[in-house]
């Protein structure tokens, strides 16, 4: 196995992604890797062609604050002593995650399984599912 240097953790603010960050942080500590924590939003004002958006502001508005928020919360799960960089991108989450992994030569991706609920365990979540299937690197599904 080649040495793990960079571990990518996509986050979306859910409990599952919190657990993914915690697990990735443990792994990073064990193998001496650094974390890339990535939040992908579908929309940003920049992605809208119209000046007067027909989309409500909650969707098309600047997602900077929300991204900041989600990344900060993810950061709370990172142990002190583990290096972590924070990234925000706009696009289709699974596509952006995989593109990021390739561009940044991620050695491992850690994703969250779906959180609690009636269907617990039945659905992995479509983004995690796509990452597990399409990633060229190994993927850990946190629980």
């Amino acid at each position: 196995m080649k040495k793990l240097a960079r571990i990518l953790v996509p986050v979306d603010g859910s409990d599952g992604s919190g657990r993914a960050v915690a697990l990735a942080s443990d792994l990073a500590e064990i193998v001496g890797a650094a974390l890339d924590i990535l939040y992908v939003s579908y929309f940003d004002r920049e992605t809208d062609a119209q000046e007067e958006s027909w989309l409500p502001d909650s969707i098309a508005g600047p997602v900077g604050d929300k991204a900041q928020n989600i990344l900060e919360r993810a950061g709370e799960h990172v142990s002190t002593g583990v290096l972590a960089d924070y990234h925000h991108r706009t696009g289709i989450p699974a596509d952006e995650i995989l593109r990021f992994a390739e561009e940044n030569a991620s050695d491992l991706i850690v994703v969250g399984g779906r959180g609690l609920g009636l269907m617990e365990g039945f659905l992995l979540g479509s983004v995690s599912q796509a990452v597990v299937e399409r990633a060229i690197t190994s993927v850990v599904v946190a629980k």
Partner: protein
Amino acid sequence: MIKNILVPVDGSEGSDRAVAEAIALAEACEGKLNFLYVANINQLAINACLSDAILEAVTKAGNVILDRAMEMVPSGISKEAFSETGSPAVVILDFAATNDMDLIVMGSRGLGVVKGVLLGSVSQYIVEQSKCPVLVVK
């Protein structure tokens, strides 16, 4: 922390890569490797009456695969081999829950000596149903 690592093996290339990655992890976190081979007896029973000869052949095939995994592990890392029969995905999840595994390491798809023992569908089922984290090795 990761102390108990479960590595289901089926002799496929994918499962070899999973073994290699699990060894590296176990070394880093001083965990124990638990190799599990599941003979898909239910499937075999449909194909043939379970004669002793068939059972023996299946057991032998499993032991060869387990021995090979065990031999890959450098000394100093604790390891144990287990052999079970049944439906692989169900047995693997049962084993993980009963024996308090912290992580399951498995290949993304395999096609072993006993065909169909660790297909992509097994990995898929385990990734979805497992209570502990799953590392899918590419």
